[in-house]
C-alpha cells in the first residue's frame, strides 16, 4: 500500500541502475542515516553505544570485507581475524611514528598493510580453488597470529604483549584512548563504515565488481570473456583485506581500547564468516543483518536467558551456560539457513519487501 513503485517510471539508464531505484527506499535510507548520525548519539545510552553499536559496526565492516572475497568472488577465507590483526598492529605502529597525524587517516591507511598481506596469502588462489584455499587462508591465520606474538616490535616491547591505545585526536576531538567520549568514538566508526560501505557498493556495481562475480560464478567462462584471473582474484583479496584491516584497526582503537592477540584468533575469523553466511553471501545488507544477529543475539541471551530459564524450570543456569546455548542456536541457525535459504537474511528481507510491494494481494 505504502511501499509501491507504481507510477515511478525510469526514463534514463542512470535512474534504472541507481542503488535504490524505488523512491520509498531512498527515503528510508536517509531516515536510517539520520537515526544513525543524530538520534542514536543523542539518545543512546553509553552502554548501547559502547557495547552494542560500536562493536556491531566494526564487525559489520569486517563482514563487508569477507563478503567481498567469499560472497562476491567465491574464495573462502578463514584468515579474516589475522588480516584484521595486521590492520590493528599497522595502525598502532603508524600512530606511534606519527602521533600528530589525524588518527582516522591512519586507521584507513593501515588497511593498506593488511591489503598487502591479503595479496600475499591470496597468491595461491591463482592456482588452486575452493577447499585448498581454506588451507592457505588458515596458513595466513596461524602464521600471522604467531608473528604478532613473536615480534615484540609490533606491540612496542610492551611486557604484557598487548597493544595499549594512546590518546589521539581527529579534527580537534579526542577519539581514542580512555578520555574519548562514547559519542565521538561511535560517530567515527559510523562515518568510516558508512563511507566504506558506500564505496564497496559502488565498486561492486561496476566493472570490477562484475569481474569478481564472473570469477565466482564460472571462472573459466570469465577468463574466456577477457577477465584476467590474476587481477580479479588478487584485487578481491586486496580490497577484502583492506576492509578487514580497517575493521581491525577500529576494533582496537575505537572499540576495545587495548588488544591482545587473542582477539584476532581463528574464532574471530569464524565469527565474521558466520555473519556473512547468515546475513547472505553476496549481499552488503546481509553483512549488517548478519553482524547484528551474530553479535547481538549472544549478548541478549547472556543477560536474558538465565532468569527466563530459572523462572520456567526448577534448574539453575549461569550466564556462561547461556553463552553456550546461544552458540548452539547460532550453529543450528547457520545449518538451517544453508538448508532453507542459502542466501541468508538478506534474501528473507528481499522476499519481505516483495510481499510488501504487492500487499494486500498475495501476488
Amino acid at each position, binding site marked *: 500500500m505504502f511501499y509501491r513503485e507504481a507510477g515511478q517510471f525510469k526514463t534514463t539508464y542512470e535512474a534504472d541502475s541507481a542503488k535504490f531505484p524505488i523512491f520509498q527506499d531512498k527515503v528510508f535510507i536517509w531516515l536510517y542515516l539520520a537515526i544513525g548520525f543524530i538520534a542514536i548519539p543523542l539518545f543512546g545510552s553509553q552502554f548501547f553505544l559502547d557495547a552494542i553499536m560500536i562493536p556491531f559496526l566494526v564487525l559489520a565492516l569486517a563482514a563487508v570485507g569477507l563478503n567481498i572475497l567469499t560472497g562476491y568472488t*567465491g574464495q*573462502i577465507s578463514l584468515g579474516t581475524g589475522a588480516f584484521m590483526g595486521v590492520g590493528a598492529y599497522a595502525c598502532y605502529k603508524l600512530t606511534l611514528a606519527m602521533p600528530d597525524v589525524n588518527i582516522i587517516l591512519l586507521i584507513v591507511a593501515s588497511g593498506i598493510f593488511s591489503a598487502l598481506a591479503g595479496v600475499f*596469502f591470496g*597468491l*595461491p588462489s591463482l*592456482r*588452486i580453488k*575452493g*577447499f*585448498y584455499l*581454506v*588451507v*592457505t587462508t*588458515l*596458513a595466513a*591465520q*596461524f*602464521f600471522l*597470529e*604467531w608473528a604478532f*606474538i*613473536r615480534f615484540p616490535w609490533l606491540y612496542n616491547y610492551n611486557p604484557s604483549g598487548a597493544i595499549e591505545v594512546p590518546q589521539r585526536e581527529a579534527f580537534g576531538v579526542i577519539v581514542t584512548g580512555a578520555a574519548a567520549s562514547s559519542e565521538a568514538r561511535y560517530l567515527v566508526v559510523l562515518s568510516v563504515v558508512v563511507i566504506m560501505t558506500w564505496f564497496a557498493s559502488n565498486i561492486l556495481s561496476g566493472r570490477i565488481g562484475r569481474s569478481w562475480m564472473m570469477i565466482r560464478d564460472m571462472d*573459466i*567462462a570469465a577468463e574466456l570473456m577477457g577477465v584476467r584471473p590474476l587481477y580479479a582474484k588478487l584485487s578481491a583479496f586486496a580490497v577484502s583485506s583492506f576492509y578487514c584491516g580497517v575493521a581491525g584497526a577500529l576494533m582496537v582503537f575505537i572499540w576495545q581500547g587495548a588488544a591482545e592477540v587473542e582477539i584476532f584468533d*581463528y574464532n574471530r575469523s*569464524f565469527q565474521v*564468516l*558466520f555473519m556473512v*553466511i547468515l546475513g547472505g553471501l553476496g549481499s552488503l545488507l546481509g553483512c549488517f543483518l548478519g553482524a547484528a544477529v551474530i553479535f547481538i543475539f549472544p549478548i541478549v541471551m547472556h543477560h536474558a536467558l538465565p532468569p527466563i530459564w530459572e523462572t520456567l524450570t526448577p534448574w539453575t543456569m549461569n550466564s*556462561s*551456560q547461556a553463552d*553456550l*546455548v546461544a*552458540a*548452539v542456536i*547460532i*550453529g*543450528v*541457525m*547457520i*545449518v538451517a539457513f*544453508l*538448508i532453507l535459504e*542459502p542466501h541468508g537474511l538478506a534474501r528473507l528481507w528481499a522476499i519481505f519487501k516483495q510481499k510488501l510491494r504487492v500487499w494486500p494481494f498475495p501476488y
Partner: protein
Amino acid sequence: MELLNQIFIEPFQTMYALPDLLLQTLWEGFVAGTLYSLIALGFVLIFKASGVFNFAQGIMVVFAALVLVGVHALGVNAYLAVLITLGVMALLAMTVVRVVLKPLVNQPDIILFMATIGLTYILIAGGQLVFGGEPKAMITEELGLPTGSSDWEVGGGIVIFQHIDIAAAVIAVILIAGLAIFFNKTRVGRALRAVADDHQAALSVGISLEYIWMVVWFAAGVVALTAGIMWAAKSDVSFALQVVALKALPVLVLGGFTSIPGAIIGGLIIGLGEKVFELYWGSTILGGGTEAWFAFIIALLFLLYRPEGLFGEKLIERI
C-alpha cells in the same frame, strides 16, 4: 653469516652430536604424524563418499573423547562407555546425514562445507554444555591401555618411548588395515567405492546413498574416537585440541583429498617435519612456537608447486 650458520650448519652438528635427541624427536614426530593421519583419514572417507569437505572432523575427535570421558564419569564401566560412545557417534552420523546432508544434496560444495562449519559450532558448544568446558583426563588405565615408558640407550643418551605412543601407533595401523579390508573386500565397501566414483550411477544401480553416507560418517566417527583416545591420553580432553585437529587440513593438501595412502604419508611428513623443524630451526632462529603454523605454510608452499597433491591426479578441465 651467523644466520646462514644457524640454518645450514648448526642443526646438523646438533643432530650428529646428540643422536638420542634426534631419535626422540623423530619418534615424537612419528606419533604426532600417526594422529594427524587418523584425523585426515576421517576427512578422506567422508570426502570420497559424499564429496563433503567435513570441517567438523577435528571436532568429532574432541567430541568423541569428551563423550567417552563424560559417560565414564557417570560411573559406567570403561568398555561399556566405549560402546555407548560408538552409539553416540552412530546417532550423530545418522542425524547429520538425515538432517544436514540430505536436504543439501546437489547444493554447491561451498554450502555443504559451511554447513559442516555450523556443525562444528554446534558440537563445540553442545559438548561443553553437556559435559562442561574444563579439561578432563582421559581414562587411559581404565581402558587397559599401557601407561609406562621404556628407555633405550643411544650414543650416550636415552630415548624414551611412552608405551601409550607405541600402542597408538599399533592401533592406528590396525585401524587403517581394518578399514582397507572393509572397503576393499565387503559389499558395503564396493558400494562405497561406487558412490565415490559417481553418485548418479551408483544410485541407478540401486545403492542407497543415504545408507552409504551413514556408514562413512560412522566410520569417520570410529576413527575420530580412536584418535581422540590416543590424543587425550597424551594431553587431556579439551577443546584446545580443535586447533591441533585443524592440522589435518594441510595433511590433506599434501596427500590429496581422496587418497588414503596420501593421508597417511602426508600425516607422517607433517608430524615429523614440524617436530624436527621446531627443534632445530624454529626454536633457535624464529623464537619457537613454529608448530602452530609449520604444517600450514608447508601446505601453502606445496600448493604453489603441485596443486593436485602428492597422489592426486592432474585435473583436466572441461567446458
